[in-house]
């Protein structure tokens, strides 16, 4: 069986994060999943155990003292060495900022084709085909690569689900990799977004409530959060609401923000500019509340309410509460 490399996302405290588990599950369908992790010297054993527990049959630990102080260079070095050692058929990374940078540089370094922002992968006749959701889901494109292995694939965050795995004691290779820190960007202070949220993750949430410029102020944006909490939904926003400071950038839904495809998307005070629709139009059911009866969001809403969010949403929250109380 061929090897499939996946780049593990390891936090400075040694946690396995992001879509690492989903990537390992995906890789296991097509070959021997080899998780590549770059860590500071000495941190490898604990990380390898965790990756084995997630189903990685082999683990390549790349040790480098700059693992968490240099921007992506140590991870790139680790991935490249692992690629030379395992001669993989494919390399899977998450389509995050780090993943994009590492995939791009690795493609140049390895002379490999790269298929980016993939939402599904199929393998037949020993070749991979990747599926891409383009122009906000208006088109579905399938792509492959000419010229042989490895094929580098970045997977849209949240697109793959982690499946149940049998924990294995992985076969571990440890190598020390060297990078010249002067040839890479240095990482400095981290400013947390300050969001400690118990809400579901926006990318994978089954329900999303988004607020726009129509909320009028950061204080009043709380209404969006209240409805989200009543529904157990994630909170999103339009770019105009982000620009106005009502919501952090990490919540922006749209062409240049996050793409979501929940079962339910509720847009509050969002006009539905084409760039916003590009990030949510593949939602199963779309509900919109907007004062302007001509707002383009109504062109795609399964249920549109023309009216004021400040009267309709509190009533909706109350009605949801009444129904929930009747159910218990």
């Amino acid at each position, binding site marked *: 069986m061929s090897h499939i490399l996946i780049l593990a996302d390891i936090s400075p405290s040694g946690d396995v994060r*992001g879509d690492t588990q989903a990537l390992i599950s995906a890789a296991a369908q097509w070959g021997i999943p080899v998780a590549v992790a770059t860590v500071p010297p000495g941190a490898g054993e604990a990380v390898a155990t965790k990756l084995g527990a997630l189903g990685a049959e082999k683990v390549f630990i790349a040790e480098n003292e700059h693992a968490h102080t240099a*921007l992506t*260079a140590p991870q790139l070095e680790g991935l490249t060495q692992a690629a030379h050692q395992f001669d993989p058929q494919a390399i899977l990374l998450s389509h*995050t*900022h780090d993943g*994009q940078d*590492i995939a*791009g*540089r690795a*493609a*140049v370094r390895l*002379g490999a*084709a790269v298929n*980016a*922002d993939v939402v599904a992968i199929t393998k037949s006749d020993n070749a991979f*085909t990747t599926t891409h959701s*383009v122009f906000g889901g*208006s*088109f*579905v*494109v*399938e*792509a492959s*690569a*000419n010229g*042989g292995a490895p094929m580098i694939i970045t997977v849209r965050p949240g697109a793959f689900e982690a499946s149940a795995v049998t924990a294995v004691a992985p076969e571990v290779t440890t190598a020390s990799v060297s990078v010249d820190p002067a*040839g890479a*960007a240095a*990482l*400095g202070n*981290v*400013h*947390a*977004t300050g969001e400690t949220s118990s809400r579901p993750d926006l990318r994978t949430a089954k*329900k999303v409530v988004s607020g726009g410029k129509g909320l009028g102020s950061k204080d009043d944006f709380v209404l969006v959060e209240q409805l989200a909490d009543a529904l157990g939904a994630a909170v999103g926003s339009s770019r105009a609401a982000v620009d106005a400071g009502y919501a952090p*950038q*990490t919540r922006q839904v749209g*062409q*240049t923000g996050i793409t979501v495809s929940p079962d339910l998307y509720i847009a509050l005070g969002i*006009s539905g500019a*084409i*760039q916003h629709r590009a990030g949510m*139009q593949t939602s199963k059911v779309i*509900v919109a509340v907007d004062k*302007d*009866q*001509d707002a*383009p969001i*109504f*062109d795609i*809403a*399964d*249920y*549109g*309410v*023309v009216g004021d969010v400040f009267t309709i949403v509190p009533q*909706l*929250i109350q*009605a*949801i509460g009444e129904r929930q109380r009747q159910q218990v």
Partner: protein
Amino acid sequence: MKILVLVKEVPDTWGERKLDPASGRVDRESVDPVLDEIGERAIEAALTIKGSDKSTEVIVVSMSPSSASKSLRKGLAMGATSAIHLADEALRGADMLLTAEALSVLIQNEGFDLVIAGNESTDGRGGMIPAMVAEHLGVPHVTFLESIEISGNRVSGVRGADSGMVEVSANLPAVASITERLPDPRFPNFKGILSAKKKPYTTVTLAELGVDAARPVSSVIVSSRERPARSGGIKIVDSGNAGRDLAEFLAQNRLL
């Protein structure tokens, strides 16, 4: 300081970029090619650096069809020093590998202290060209910046990440990419538009760069289909009961 700014011409995401400010409605029929908004912001970032050090040269660089000269001229009208246009029929449909290689050869020939690009184009959205170019050039990348500054021999900024914001910095020469969190681009004024006509504008071909468009490896599209467009469903006007009606709709659809 010599700053090369990578820009792309893309289909206008607005259709025709004239719209009713009240409703935000756009003409969706039109796909006029425009200078990508993120590229305009990258030019803005470079011009801001030039603003504090007048000796800075800002060169807009684009790999695009020969018809894209209007977009490059816009960069000149905004205040860039000169423009280089890589136009070659053989580049039609180029994947990221070929694009990055061709741009890198051009950049290397031209010489640079800093390359600034948008984080990702609105059409391709791969978001890897800046890192790929950095790899070809053998320099550090500082990407997805929400602010950018030069001090001495270093470029620094704040990079957005899921877990928060992180300060990053690198020695020049380097490749940077910026996000739409950077300030809005300036509008070219009349004087800028006039002077743009007289600024140096160079066109180059692949043969001049010595790059072969034929590739041993490439990413290829095998199929493409359009999803049926969505249409509107129920639309009600609130007359005092819409919140409860909406709760009923959600309950009926098992969404509560």
